[in-house]
């Protein structure tokens, strides 16, 4: 500290930048986390590819070739990951050479896929972040997404109104579904002390089974469907695509706008609203909140209800934006990914937004990686990288110590999980 403070003029701009980089802030932690995740993923690729593994047996006789072949494989895989998630360079060159609708659609495809996958995840991550901000660990995202999706579907095929009425009605129904399920956990937590982790976890499994039950009932089942799919959402209940005039494979839809609105709304909720402030206070210091006259039972229920309604909304976005019907494994792993998204975004609305886009990128890029690498590196590698990144971001103390970053104390929160009751 003293050296930088007393002799700033003597150091060149590069050196100053390097010194600054050693001061811990969230950006540097994120970069380092991504770096660590990619290194770990690279090691995994090398270890699980037999050819590369064999080449390491001559690591001492031909060190250069060994390292180069491993590095090239890993680099190629990550290149595919990036091109599949953000932009394909080849397609971009084609577009520049020959601007046409088809080429534009090819260039936009990866990004559209990323944002489409990210859309429900943004909203789901926001929902969980609300809980985490007030120290409520709602891990029942999966069940609440399903509940929201089911109720939205019920509205979607029961009514055939104009889109301007139908879509808001679906949104309300979905939010109600998620809110009811999470609110139940909230009521149990507030009045009986049942820990929300277990209640919400169990509600996940229960909702999966309930969904399986509903899909074979005549109310929901599509006649003649082999894969257990439900009836489809009518044309008026679907969210409109942005680029449907370019190509049918560009699935980015109006849901993304709803997600951005949700981000802004949650931002406002925590920054400006009284209830949001109360929730934050309960989360950071429940004793102080009680002394200040905040009714903790009420805030627990409000918090979980809000969180659940956002997760239900995520289910609705998934339903009306992409699939338009429900299958027994509706929602995929959104509920669990949303937990890690919230942790990655450090529970801040815009952090969650970019975290979800990162997840969407890893998902679509991972599929491209699986398709285009010679050894078909499985797309679950992307999830491994994600998990490592989230591990590093959620517990920055490790990175701060490993890379000798300075002044990292403000990033490390030592809040207790508070035990079970």
């Amino acid at each position, binding site marked *: 500290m003293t050296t930088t403070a007393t002799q700033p003029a003597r150091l060149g701009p590069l050196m100053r930048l390097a010194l600054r980089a050693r001061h811990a802030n969230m950006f540097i932690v994120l970069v380092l986390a991504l770096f660590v995740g990619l290194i770990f993923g690279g090691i995994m690729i090398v270890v699980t590819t037999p050819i590369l593994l064999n080449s390491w047996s001559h690591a001492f006789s031909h060190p250069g070739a060994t390292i180069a072949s491993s590095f090239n494989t890993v680099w190629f895989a990550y290149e595919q990951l990036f091109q599949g998630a953000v932009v394909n360079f080849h397609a971009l060159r084609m577009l520049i050479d020959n601007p046409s609708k088809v080429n534009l659609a090819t260039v936009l495809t990866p990004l559209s896929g990323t944002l489409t996958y990210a859309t429900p995840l943004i909203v789901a991550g926001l929902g969980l972040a609300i809980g985490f901000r007030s120290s409520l660990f709602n891990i029942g995202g999966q069940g609440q997404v399903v509940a929201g999706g089911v109720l939205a579907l019920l509205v979607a095929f029961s009514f055939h109104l104009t889109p301007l009425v139908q879509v808001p009605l679906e949104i309300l129904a979905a939010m109600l579904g998620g809110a009811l399920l999470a609110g139940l956990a909230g009521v149990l937590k507030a009045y009986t002390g049942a820990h929300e982790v277990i209640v919400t976890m169990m*509600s996940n499994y229960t909702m999966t089974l*309930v969904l399986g039950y509903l899909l074979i009932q005549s109310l929901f089942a599509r006649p003649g469907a082999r894969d257990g799919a439900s009836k489809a959402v009518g044309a008026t209940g679907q969210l409109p695509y942005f680029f449907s005039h370019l190509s049918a494979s560009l699935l980015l839809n109006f849901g993304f706008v709803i997600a951005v609105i949700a981000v802004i709304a949650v931002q406002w909720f925590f920054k400006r609203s009284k209830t949001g402030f109360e929730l934050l206070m309960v989360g950071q210091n429940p004793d102080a909140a009680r002394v200040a006259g905040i009714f903790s039972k009420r805030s627990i229920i409000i918090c979980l209800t809000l969180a659940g309604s956002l997760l239900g909304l995520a289910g609705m976005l998934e339903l009306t934006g992409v699939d338009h019907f429900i299958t027994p494994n509706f929602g995929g792993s959104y509920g669990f990914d949303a937990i890690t998204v919230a942790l990655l975004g450090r529970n801040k609305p815009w952090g969650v937004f970019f975290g979800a886009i990162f997840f969407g990128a890893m998902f679509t890029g991972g599929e491209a990686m699986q398709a285009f690498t010679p050894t078909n590196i499985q797309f679950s590698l992307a999830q491994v990288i994600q998990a490592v990144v989230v591990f590093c971001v959620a517990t920055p103390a490790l990175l701060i110590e490993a890379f000798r970053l300075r002044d990292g104390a403000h990033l490390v929160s030592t809040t207790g999980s508070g035990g079970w009751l």
Partner: protein
Amino acid sequence: MSTDSRSIVTLENLRSVSRTRSLAYGITLMVLGVLEFVWYGSAASGLHTIIQFGYNTATVWPVVSSPWRFLLLFFGVAIIALALRAASVPLYSRLVASIRGSRTMTALIGAYLVIWPVLLWAGINQGGQLRTMTIPVALTGDVFGVLSIATGAVLAWRRLDRSASGLLFTGLFVFLLGFLIWVARGSLDLQLTAILASAVAVSTFLIFGSVSGTLCERSGVVNIAIEGQFMAGALSSIVFTSALQGTGLSKTFALLLAGLFGALFGWILAVMALRYQANQIIVGVVIVAFCTAMSQFLVTQVLDLRQNLNGSYGLPVWAVPGLSRIPVIGPVLFDQNVLVFVAFAIVIMANFALFRTRWGLRVRSVGEKPIASETVGINVVRMRYGAVIIGGFVAGIGGAGFTLGPGSPFTYGMTSGYGYIALAIMIFGRWRPYGALMASLLFGFTIALSANLNLYLQQLVIPQQFISALPYLITIVVVSGVVGRIRPPAADGVPFERR
């Protein structure tokens, strides 16, 4: 986090808590009884259920194959047991009492010995190859219902403290048994012994998981990563065994390896929670996410291409000589794969370690009041490291039970949330190994029941999905305080900062 759990602990408070618990248990039992009376008791009077006991006179232990021999055995055992108990009074406090619940066990075995001759006389068909028994459904429902209501009423009225949880467990078990009898009415034989045996097999994971959770949380660290440790143990053990093709001691070492992988993730949790004082629930969830992704990656990238690394190798089934030939109890408890016996041993060891050794006292003190422990010279962080790593080891071995137990290859998602259920069981068992054992057996029974019920689907009014949801719903009911207020270790989940 409610105000009640923070109120000062006084004798009067504790008494009122245990009385409230007894009242709650009694009311629960009465509700169950009414359900049984109305539901099972209303079956048509002609309906019968044939229970199959899964043994015949050739394989059963000769001593109990006839009522007369059995009576001899019963009275002999009873007299000898009484005499032993009377003689061991001075020893009891030291040796026998160190195994908590030994009296309960004696009572359980005694009850079994009383019930068995009654069953033998009541209507076991002597003609068939396998012993069966025909039970009238409606009468069973009525009897179970009345018994349950009466017990519940006594419990609620007299506020019995000591016998409360035992009676509740028995009541729940009887309720499920009645449900089985009701479901299997009329057509198929009820494979009671097989269902009970699979219940014990299923509860193995739960026992390991909940004991692991108990060890960690007694020291004040919330281990929500049990699910991840299960996956690590399941995957590593089957790959190791398959690589050695199940030869020699490979399965033993596979169990150890599974334990080591569990301990590794326990160590990671400990480092993050103790050294960096991170939020333990977040670390746990992230560890589970990592293990999920990693297992999926390894399965799709490596194991799907090399099936020989993910084979079917089961642990040997060991029939305890003599004991395994007792009817019903024999196949259920003493004719199981080795891991089941390891599970029982670990429960006893964990209980002994936690409540009868210096180490256990220190672990518990660290989990209750770390500052006080620090003051008397206990190294809080080191104690917690030890407990969390040992807990991880136990959970890892439990994970091996998913693959090596039934002898099936590893599939993605095969742990299906048992790691979280184990946490609920730990709460149900009140952070005690024996409580965890009893709760695990009850949950295992529910899970085995839901798995076996597709045999009787045409009888079922309730959709199968709801039966499958039973373990999860019971978990919710359990943690939401039907079992009464529960008190976790005071410093559970609170990072410790040395002053």
